[in-house]
């Protein structure tokens, strides 16, 4: 199979997965596979069922109207770029989905077309990797997950420097200080400069079914021990009703499993790397963390080992689980109009371990803490052929107005401090579609508990391959005979060798 063929096949596969996960509509699915040269008969189309609604996204209210001043600036600055088309590829994160819907306003004001290819995370990485390797400039903007920021730091333009260097294109009122400082430091910066602009901040939050915990007289857990005890109790009491204590995103070989693992390691006082740049995932604390995760898995739906964040969200939405320590972005979907669990989930600060290593005790800029951030940034490609048009779009997409409206549209955590206190956002702190009632907690987590994975050029590979594949072998019984230490020793050997080989 050629790699072009690979790309086509994964595109079709990803589109099918997106459709099944309700990320795209039937119409979009048919359009995508049509683009891939696949035809479907009426019979096949009928099998696809009816279009489902998005997860609680609400657009179109008066509060969502485009800001007049922004509109004027866009019109003035974009005259030379009319007719330009800019492209970027992104995962179907809530802000991207909302931005995709708002981008028409940008095009209307500027005449600049924006194409956002929405594909699963691993495909975003693949496409960005191909683009930078060949310095192709196929994409003008890169959507970069926090774990890839170091890898792509050499391929993007520092937005702060560009803002100063191009005053004629600088958006008035950009207010860089409005970006949450922990987010900028933990997410957007590498080696002392901005790699891109913070765009998305899913962060690990403890979420629980209030009704189930009350039924069993369990207090919302504050520590990993309390969490495990509650999970065990609920599984024992509710398993016959098809409910488990918790659900995991433990799909073998997927980044989601690596995220889960990182959090349990930190909660047990461990870290991924040490200050000597050696892998520490096999030390006593880290192995304890993995053993804790093995215990959680015993109390989770068996499908957890084949689930990523989508599957974990589904477990919460279908009433299969009562407690989840995972991404806050799940929350608005559970409050959607057609949700079976509307108003039943609550969010709180994440469970905290007894002690966390300091960044100085870890390596490669890792920040161990209770709230694993899984954020992303938008980076301006050095190789873009439409640099200035892309820069105008990036500023617009990350402006106060648009970021706040993205939050209003999807209910997810904003990057900007002003969005958290925006009256429109505050007004939606009620049960319902696009709820923001979890955001006060998320703000506290960002300010106090935010944790970050290591910033190193090899991390994209480790976190998508070596670590989750071997964890998958352990958790599904393919290898290591259930021995967490043996599994981590294998990973340590591979990672230490690769780090030494790269001369880091």
């Amino acid at each position, binding site marked *: *199979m*050629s*790699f072009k063929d*690979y790309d086509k*096949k*994964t595109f*079709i*596969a990803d*589109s*099918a*997965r997106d*459709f*099944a996960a309700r990320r795209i509509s039937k119409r979009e699915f048919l359009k995508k*596979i049509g683009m891939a040269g*696949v035809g*479907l*008969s009426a*019979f*096949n189309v009928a099998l696809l069922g009816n279009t489902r609604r998005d997860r609680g996204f609400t657009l179109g209210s008066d509060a969502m109207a485009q800001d007049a001043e922004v509109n004027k600036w866009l019109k003035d600055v974009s005259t030379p770029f009319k007719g330009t088309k800019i492209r970027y590829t992104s995962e179907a994160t809530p802000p991207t989905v909302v931005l995709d819907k708002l981008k028409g306003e940008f095009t209307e004001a500027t005449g600049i077309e924006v194409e956002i290819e929405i594909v699963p995370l*691993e*495909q975003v*990485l*693949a496409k960005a*990797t191909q683009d*930078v*390797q060949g310095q192709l400039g196929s994409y003008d903007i890169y959507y970069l997950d926090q774990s890839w920021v170091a890898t792509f730091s050499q391929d993007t333009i520092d937005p702060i420097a560009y803002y100063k260097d191009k005053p004629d294109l600088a958006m008035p009122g950009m207010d860089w200080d409005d970006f949450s400082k922990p987010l900028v430091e933990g997410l957007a910066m590498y080696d002392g400069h901005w790699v891109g602009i913070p765009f998305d901040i899913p962060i690990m939050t403890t979420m629980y079914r209030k009704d189930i915990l009350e039924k069993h007289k369990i207090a919302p857990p504050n520590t990993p021990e309390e969490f495990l005890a509650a999970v065990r109790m609920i599984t024992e009491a509710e398993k016959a009703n098809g409910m488990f204590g918790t659900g995991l995103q433990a*799909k*073998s*070989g*997927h980044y989601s499993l690596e995220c889960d693992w990182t959090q349990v390691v930190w909660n047990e006082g461990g870290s991924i790397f040490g200050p000597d740049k050696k892998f520490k995932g096999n030390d006593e604390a880290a192995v304890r963390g993995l053993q804790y995760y093995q215990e959680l898995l015993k109390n989770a*739906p*068996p*499908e*957890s*080992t*084949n*689930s990523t964040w989508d599957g974990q969200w589904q*477990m919460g939405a*279908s009433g*299969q689980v009562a407690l989840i320590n995972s991404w806050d972005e799940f929350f608005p979907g559970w409050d959607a109009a057609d949700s079976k669990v509307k108003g039943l989930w609550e969010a709180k600060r994440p469970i905290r371990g007894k002690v966390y290593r300091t960044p100085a005790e870890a390596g490669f800029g890792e920040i161990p803490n209770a709230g694993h951030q899984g954020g992303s940034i938008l980076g301006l490609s050095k190789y873009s052929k439409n640099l200035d048009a892309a820069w105008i779009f990036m500023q617009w997409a990350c402006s106060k107005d648009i970021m706040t409206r993205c939050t209003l549209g999807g209910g997810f955590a904003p990057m900007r401090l002003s969005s958290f206190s925006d009256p429109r956002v505050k007004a939606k702190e009620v049960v319902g579609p696009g709820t923001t009632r979890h955001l006060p907690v998320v703000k506290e987590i960002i300010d106090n508990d935010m944790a970050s994975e290591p910033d190193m*050029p*090899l991390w*994209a*590979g480790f976190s*998508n*391959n070596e670590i989750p*594949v*071997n964890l*998958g*072998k*352990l*958790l*599904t*019984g*393919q*290898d290591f005979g259930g021995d967490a230490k043996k599994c981590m020793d294998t990973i340590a050997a591979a990672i230490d060798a*690769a780090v030494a*080989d*790269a001369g*880091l």
Partner: protein
Amino acid sequence: MSGEAVSNNARQQWLPSWLSSEHPFPWLFPASALMIVFGVYPLVYAIWLSLERKHPVTRKLTFAPTYNWGKLLGDERVWNALANTFIYTGIALVLQLVLGMLIALLLDSDRKGYGLLRAMMTLPLVIPPSVTAMMFLLMLNGSFGVLTRGIIALGLLPPGYSVLGQSSTAMAGVLLAEVWQWTPFMVLIMLAGLRSLPKEPFEAAAIDGATAIQAFLKLTLPMMSKVIAIAVLIRGIDLFRAFDYVKVMTDSGPGTATETLTSYAGRIYFGNADFPYASTIALLTLIVVIVVSSLFMKIFKVKL
């Protein structure tokens, strides 16, 4: 001499002889050019890449002809993927062949309605493999999958069991989708072979009192051997490049339980961005396919 003849002579003198219509070159050029651009060039490029070493940080390529091949020989996952590829190909091929032949024998009739049944066999083939994989992914879901629930109801699996989430059963789950979709292909090939067999030997065998099983073993199978060999060869090569079902249903997991050579190459290429090593794995796949299919063709005397 007419004006037209003069003009033709002048053109022939002006054109080199290898560009004249009598020479094979102009006729072979379009197909050859396509083959070079889409077949030879990518292959040469992959070979060149396999001789390079990519620095993981600077991304610079340096000439290191033995590096990737040496790494490949020492990479446990390559051998695991190779074994998985053979297992996947072998099991799928046997199941598709046996089921294909059985169904073809059942459908080899001129009675009313059989034509429609034969036409219906093409339906699974028109569904894109990724969509089929998605269907089976949902049907095998441990929580709500209809197939899993059926198997659980029969008492063959414990409640909530995730077929694709456990390393011991994931391969079987993926094979289920593969066999469901591609058995009809075997049926169609076998049917074409069966319907072209001469009737006389079967009539003679019936007069001699041969049973249906004897007729099948002594007549049908030997006469179908070439058709079967071709079908096995075509499907075998296709199965060896297994990717769609693995990617969608398990993404090579759990662990490496369903990792095939192509899915491993994909992960190295797109996950680790190690293009030279991924190309080396892809070349290994090509070498294995060429060796195995050549052996097969020699043993079974298949001529294409």
